[in-house]
């Protein structure tokens, strides 16, 4: 082997490896190129990693960021209480209101079914009124919500429930039936609470409030529509006391015509 031959062999060996090496690198670069260039292929590989990291991060938030967030919130709330209250009030207020409304409804349903089951009083007022005026019941309900009015005043004999005198602005109910029912309810309730001194003073029926005021041999029932509160009740009580004492009602109980006239003179307005 001469020099040249030897050299050629070495060259061969060396160059073959180099060529192979080069082509392998070339392949790798091409595939890298491919991977980088094709976004999808890249994200396929990267997404799972990011997802993983992100999941971990979220899991760790309470530990890592939690205290900071809470602290910030606390400070925010402290520094701007009014704003927070304002923001929360409608939500909490509504929740509480709804809860109370619900409870009240349950309670009033219970009372109503009890009263309806016990006494056939059903819609006696509004139905009669609706019939008489030709206005439908739901319109009446809305109308009735607006202002306080004395609808009817009945002087009723205790025990028998017989009407001694009556005054009403629009003759819509049968006072004899109302007086009978009221007396029955009154007896029932007062019996249930046994104590003789205990008197039923007030019945709510549908949108009517029936104010009851006791005297020795009779009681006076005032049917009121609209808002009825303690202040009104108080004034009404005084007005009735005024009426009975000034007009000496106890002395004229047997004179239906005379009491009726006096009742009308006294109650024919909504002033109390």
């Amino acid at each position, binding site marked *: 082997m001469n020099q040249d031959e030897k050299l050629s062999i070495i060259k061969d060996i060396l160059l073959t490896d180099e060529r192979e090496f080069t082509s392998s690198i070339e392949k790798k670069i091409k595939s890298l190129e491919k991977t980088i260039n094709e976004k999808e292929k890249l994200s396929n590989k990267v997404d799972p990693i990011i997802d993983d990291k992100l999941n971990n991060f979220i899991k760790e938030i309470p530990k890592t960021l939690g205290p900071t967030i809470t602290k910030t919130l606390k400070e925010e709330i402290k520094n701007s209480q009014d704003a927070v209250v304002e923001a929360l009030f409608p939500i909490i207020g509504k929740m509480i209101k709804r809860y109370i409304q619900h409870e009240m409804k349950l309670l009033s349903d219970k009372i109503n079914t009890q009263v309806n*089951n*016990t*006494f*056939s009083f059903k819609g006696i007022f509004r139905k009669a009124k609706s019939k008489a005026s030709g206005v439908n019941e739901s319109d009446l309900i809305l109308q009735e919500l607006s202002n306080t009015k004395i609808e009817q005043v009945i002087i009723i*004999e*205790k*025990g*028998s*429930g*017989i*009407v001694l005198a009556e005054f009403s602005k629009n003759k819509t109910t*049968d006072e*004899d*039936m109302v*007086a*009978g*029912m009221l007396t*029955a309810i009154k*007896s*029932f309730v*007062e*019996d249930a609470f046994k104590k003789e001194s205990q008197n039923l003073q007030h019945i709510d029926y549908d949108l009517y409030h029936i104010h009851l005021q006791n005297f020795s041999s009779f009681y006076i029932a005032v049917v009121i529509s609209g808002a009825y509160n303690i202040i009104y009740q108080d004034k009404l009580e005084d007005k009735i006391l005024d009426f009975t004492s000034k007009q000496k009602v106890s002395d004229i109980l047997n004179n239906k015509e005379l009491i009726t006239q006096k009742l009308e003179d006294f109650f024919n307005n909504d002033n109390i």
Partner: protein
Amino acid sequence: MITSKKIVLIGHFGVGKTSLIRRFVENTFSEDYKVTIGVHISKKTIEIAEDESVSFIIWDLEGQDDIKKTRVSYLLGTHAFIYVFDLSRPSTFENLKNEVNYLHENYSKTPLKVVGNKVDLVNKEYLAQYNDKFDDLVDLFVSAKNGSRVESLFSKLAKELI
């Protein structure tokens, strides 16, 4: 002139108190039985003479198999009682004398009518066996179903009350 009078019907369950009132007030009758709970009030005005009317405010009480259990406050101020029993059910009149006596003793001033209802369901022979028992206790045999003597029960009462 109109005078109002409180009338109370008493008697056991299902003897026909509610039916008698409906016959008198609305002139109707129904076979189905709806138990009266608490008190029902109805009203009917009848004329007994020219310019003379009586308004009956009628209290229909829930039935009680023992008259002593009736809520006393419901009976206050009553102008007349109608005690009803069921002619077709002897259990509703086996204690008749005691129950009537109880009313006489406790409400001696209040007029009382004792009526046997559902007379449409029984015949003469049946009634005859109870002759002795009914003789001086019972005022009338009536029927809410066919209306027999219901009107006369109330018009008699009206006249006695004026």
